[in-house]
């Protein structure tokens, strides 16, 4: 493990990879600040660039840097103009924006940066211990357990979709799995569901689908409803005093400690992710705060700002645990990263740590470096970076659409792919109008081939589906998957009935 760690350290500290981290963080911050553009859209747009680098470690380091930068950028727009660029930074605006209105924008940004740094750092440290332990357990798994584990992951994503959303999330997952069966799979060597369209022989492109699910709907929604852009293009808030007092530092320290730990553990669970971590972090801190401090929440409390910021950054790091150790993405963002890794011929999973330790460890170490970069580079640069908020939407929207189209074109070098992109993007926008969650669709699409592959292998090995009851671990995992789907659906049905009768 120490040898691998040192190899990772050597890889992460190379000039090329340091530039990747710095570049990724800056690009992510710039774009993440734009209201309406989340990390998933940004990473989807950046994938063709990352793949063209060719080096998997450098590509993943760049994308991870973009991810952190985007989350940090989202906090900045939440604090400065009350327009969260990302769902996970909505809770940041509860107290961040009131602080800006009180003329304390600089202070709010400093607290957000410190809390993010601490959350990310604690997360990275926990990742160093958690990931190898989980990977060593996962090495004992057979294809049947992998199949069951993936079913648990997909079920958890649906289960955490929220009240009234479980069946929709489940349906979207199955749609994603079905889309993954289109084309000529490696396993059977025969075309499936191609409808005699030659361009579908190789299946639907992962980059095309990722852009269609996130970048196109986000942008079309900005066109449909211009008020979603927040006050982008309006006069920039003055950011002068970045200092925090001793008393404020004393107040936020325990909050950051608690929420970094809680956020990380929530991030590790598939489907929970940074958004739930930030809201839960905010709610927990408000509930345990003394009476007079509780009144401050929502009006510019430093604790209320530090809690979601440390929780969402720790959760971002935590979400890498199932990705790197099991090869199972816990969120839409990590699903996109998984797709990028597969495109680079890297298979994340328990063997990654043994077979390609330089990738495994360099990514973990670069997370820590990314947090340092965000703290020391972005904070002094924030007044300048915030100028991106003044870019008029008349230029912003055509450019986002153009980069999306270019991403799909470069990825496949095929103009027909652009038509698929537009068609799928319009379908995704309509689904968003009907509140169908789109992340489960993409996760299903990415996990689809692996799920089918493990299912087929287990079935061939046992000459049928007897592996379900012959392997106790598989049976237990599948039982958990069923419970994950049935219990929340029943609970929300019961709650609704009580509401009707009461």
């Amino acid at each position, binding site marked *: 493990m120490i040898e691998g760690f040192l190899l990772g350290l050597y890889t992460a500290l190379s000039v090329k990879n340091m530039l990747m981290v710095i570049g990724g963080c800056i690009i992510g911050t710039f774009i993440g600040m734009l209201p309406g553009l989340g990390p998933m859209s940004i990473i989807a747009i950046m994938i063709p*660039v990352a793949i*063209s680098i060719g080096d998997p470690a450098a590509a993943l380091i760049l994308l991870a840097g973009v991810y952190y930068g985007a989350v940090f950028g989202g906090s900045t727009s939440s604090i400065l103009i009350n327009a969260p660029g990302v769902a996970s930074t909505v809770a940041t605006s509860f107290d961040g924006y009131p602080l800006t209105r009180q003329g304390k924008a600089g202070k709010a940004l400093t607290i957000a940066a410190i809390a993010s740094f601490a959350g990310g750092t604690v997360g990275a440290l926990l990742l160093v211990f958690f990931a190898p332990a989980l990977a060593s357990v996962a090495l004992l798994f057979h294809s049947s357990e992998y199949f069951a584990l993936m079913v648990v992951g997909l079920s958890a994503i649906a289960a955490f979709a929220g*009240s*009234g*959303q*479980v*069946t*929709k999330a489940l*349906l979207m997952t*199955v*749609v994603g799995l*079905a889309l993954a069966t289109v084309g000529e799979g490696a*396993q059977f060597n*025969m075309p*499936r*569901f191609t409808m005699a369209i030659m361009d579908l022989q190789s299946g639907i492109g992962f980059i095309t689908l990722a852009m269609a699910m996130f970048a196109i709907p986000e942008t*079309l*929604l900005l*066109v*449909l*409803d*211009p008020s979603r852009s927040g006050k982008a293009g309006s006069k920039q808030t003055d950011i002068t005093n970045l200092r925090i007092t001793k008393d404020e530092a004393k107040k936020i320290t325990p909050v950051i400690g608690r929420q970094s730990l809680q956020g990380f553990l929530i991030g590790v669970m598939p489907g929970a992710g940074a958004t739930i971590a930030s809201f839960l972090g905010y709610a927990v801190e408000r509930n345990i705060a003394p009476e007079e401090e509780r009144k401050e929440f929502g009006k510019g409390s430093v604790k209320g700002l530090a809690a979601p910021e440390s929780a969402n950054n720790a959760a971002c790091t935590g979400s890498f645990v199932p990705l790197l150790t099991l090869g199972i993405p816990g969120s839409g963002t990590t699903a996109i990263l998984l797709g990028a890794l597969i495109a680079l011929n890297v298979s994340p999973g328990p063997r990654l740590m043994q077979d390609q330790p330089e990738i495994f460890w360099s990514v973990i170490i670069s997370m820590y470096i990314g947090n340092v970069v965000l703290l020391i580079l972005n904070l002094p640069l924030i007044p300048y970076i915030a100028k991106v908020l003044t870019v*008029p*939407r*008349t*230029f912003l*929207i*055509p*450019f986002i*659409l*153009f980069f999306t*189209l*270019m991403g799909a*074109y*470069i990825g496949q070098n095929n*103009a027909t792919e*652009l*038509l698929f992109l*537009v068609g799928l993007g*319009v379908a995704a926008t*309509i*689904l*968003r*109008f*009907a*509140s*169908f*969650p789109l992340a489960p669709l993409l996760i299903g699409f990415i996990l689809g081939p692996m799920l089918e592959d493990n*299912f*087929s292998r287990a*079935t*061939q090995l046992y*000459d*049928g589906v007897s592996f379900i009851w012959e392997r106790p671990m598989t049976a237990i995992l599948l039982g958990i998957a069923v419970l994950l789907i049935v219990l929340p*659906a029943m609970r*929300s*049905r019961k709650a*609704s*009935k009580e509401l*009707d009768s009461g």
Partner: protein
Amino acid sequence: MALDRWLALFIALIFLIYGYTAFFQMDGLLPPILQRNPVWPSTFPKILSVIGVFGALCVLINIEKTDRQIIDDIIVENWRLYKIFNALTLISGMVIYALTLRSLGFLAATFLFLSLSAALLGERRFPLLIVVSGMASYGIWYLVDSVLGIYMTPFPAFLNIS
């Protein structure tokens, strides 16, 4: 009926077609040697079609018995307030861009897409628009073609210049 239930009905129909293909069309093409295999190419799609139809019906009959969740402040009932014309025109613009990228060449197609889209969204500083679109078109073509090494036809096909 709410939009989500209409969509669930549509998805159910898609899964019925998907299932019909998996159950009745795919297996006929299978070579005899593969028919002795416990897993066929249609096995996984068959399972998915059953779960898909079941899931779509659950949404259709609103089995969770909850009101529609409003995510991201999108309120479908307010559709009249949305700039639908602008969105449809931009979608058409993307389709035209995809269809003309090869024939018009990257530079002209990109320049027209960027400048016309910005003008549609209300940009009236035309000299700035032309400069920004022109610089972006050339800059990105140079970056993709020369730096990333991905060839893209820069000029219209009829000029025969590469």
